[in-house]
């Protein structure tokens, strides 16, 4: 079977045979950059139409149904519309920061792509602190939100940005603690090690109830970190028009929009990697025959299947729950998620030390 890693190895050896190693590395970097941008564009299109369809079905509507078969080309048409729109810069704004903010949002989303394992042996950069890297870089995205809110010189934008700051700073803690449970069980921060540790069963099945609790906390914190409903206080269209991106239009708005969906994809990919085994097929320890059958399904399909399942769950949250108030939001984090997460990590540590997990 042809796998992505074979193709990557062949391209690598061919480039190294043709060119000097430095130039080969540069060319590979360009290829990866183009592939990442292509993935972003594709994901943006797919996730927007998926969101609109899922929301429509949950609200007993039809959703977009005019452009293309069953309305599936709607997001493409919207992209063309956004491309030809004028990108206004308000005259009272801080122009440099205003124009920089959407790019920071995109860059933060792009950097997060590096340690994710898309398929067996297909990593952009399998660095030894992958999980820590994701936790660290994901907090950069708040800078773009604050920058956009501040430079717009608009009260709504500033309020949205400040809320977003408070929210992300709080929820990063419980997201970190729930990630830490898996790190404790695996004993490694490297993403490939975490995935290989799930060869005989995914952590959500192997780790008993504490890992399930950690998974739920991770889902909640991830929803909050990506500023999606019910935690979309930074945008809060009923209170703040559009929050931090009120003043943005055209492609600059589209970059924020795209960055939101890319962030959703990445946190869901991280959740799938940590708790559901990433690209690892559904294995049950000891059942060799069953495991070989499962291996016939390509690993990239497993990865994208799990990720899109988690994305669907997040959309399900979004179209079911009403938005929280800012005090409820902070109560939920500091009074519930964080204490539970702390007790939970103690339990997981006990399980890991005693070797009670499978």
């Amino acid at each position, binding site marked *: 079977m042809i796998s992505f890693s074979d193709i990557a190895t062949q391209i690598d050896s061919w480039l190294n045979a043709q060119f000097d190693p430095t130039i080969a590395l540069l060319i590979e970097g360009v290829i990866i950059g183009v592939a990442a941008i292509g993935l972003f564009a594709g994901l943006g299109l797919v996730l927007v139409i998926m969101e609109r369809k*899922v929301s429509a*079905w949950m609200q*007993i*509507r*039809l959703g977009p149904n005019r452009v293309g078969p069953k309305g599936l080309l709607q997001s493409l048409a919207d992209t063309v519309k956004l491309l030809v729109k004028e990108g206004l810069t308000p005259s009272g704004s801080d122009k440099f920061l205003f124009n920089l903010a959407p790019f920071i949002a995109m860059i933060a989303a792009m950097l997060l792509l590096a340690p994710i394992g898309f398929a067996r042996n297909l990593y952009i950069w399998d660095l030894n602190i992958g999980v820590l890297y994701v936790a660290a870089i994901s907090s950069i995205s708040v800078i773009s939100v604050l920058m956009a809110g501040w430079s717009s010189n608009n009260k709504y934008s500033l309020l949205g940005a400040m809320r977003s700051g408070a929210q992300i700073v709080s929820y990063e803690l419980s997201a970190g603690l729930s990630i830490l449970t898996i790190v404790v069980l695996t004993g490694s921060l490297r993403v490939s090690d975490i995935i290989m540790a799930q060869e005989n069963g995914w952590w959500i099945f192997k780790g008993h109830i504490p890992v399930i609790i950690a998974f739920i906390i991770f889902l909640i914190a991830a929803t909050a970190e990506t500023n999606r409903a019910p935690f979309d206080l930074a945008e809060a269209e009923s209170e703040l028009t559009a929050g931090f991106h009120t003043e943005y239009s055209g492609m600059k708005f589209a970059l924020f929009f795209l960055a939101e969906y890319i962030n959703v994809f990445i946190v869901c990919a991280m959740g799938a990697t940590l708790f559901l085994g990433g690209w690892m097929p559904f294995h049950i320890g000891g059942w060799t025959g069953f495991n070989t059958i499962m291996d016939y399904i390509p690993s990239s399909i497993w990865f994208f299947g799990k990720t899109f399942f988690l994305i669907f769950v997040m959309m*399900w*949250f979004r179209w*079911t*729950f009403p938005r929280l108030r800012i005090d409820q939001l902070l109560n939920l984090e500091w009074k519930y998620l964080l204490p539970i997460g702390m007790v939970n990590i103690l339990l997981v540590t006990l399980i890991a030390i005693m070797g009670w997990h499978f």
Partner: protein
Amino acid sequence: MFLKEYIRNIAGGLKSLVTGMRMTGYYFTHHKEIITQQYPDNRDTLELPERFKGEVVMPHNEHNEHRCTGCTACELACPNGTIKVITKFDVTPEGKKKKAIDKLVYHLELCTMCNLCVEACPSDAIKMAQTFEHSVFDRNQLTKVLNNPGSKIMEGVE
């Protein structure tokens, strides 16, 4: 004691969240009933709710008679001067003068469909119609005279 309350809070919260998710999950998996209407496609079979407010009309019966007495209650009730009642005096067979409407002018372009005129009318002469495709190329066409030419008041309406 505190811990018991705390855990009960969490359990209650989770239970209510799951209830909500089951509801939307049911709608997602049972995609048959659609509450929205596919408007331009179903123009012929379009069903509007009874209380839909499209524009103000004055119903006439088969003898070209309406119920308007020309009391101008609708004109007074209108918040933005959409309705103008132009009255005249009819002479009854007994030789008495009686107030009646000459024209009831209705400016659709000003109307906010607030329904206050219909509620103010003491003789139910006007009502809200269910038409809503009001686009025209000339805005003069939006100024309408509600009573038909040559119409008169119904017998027995005071």
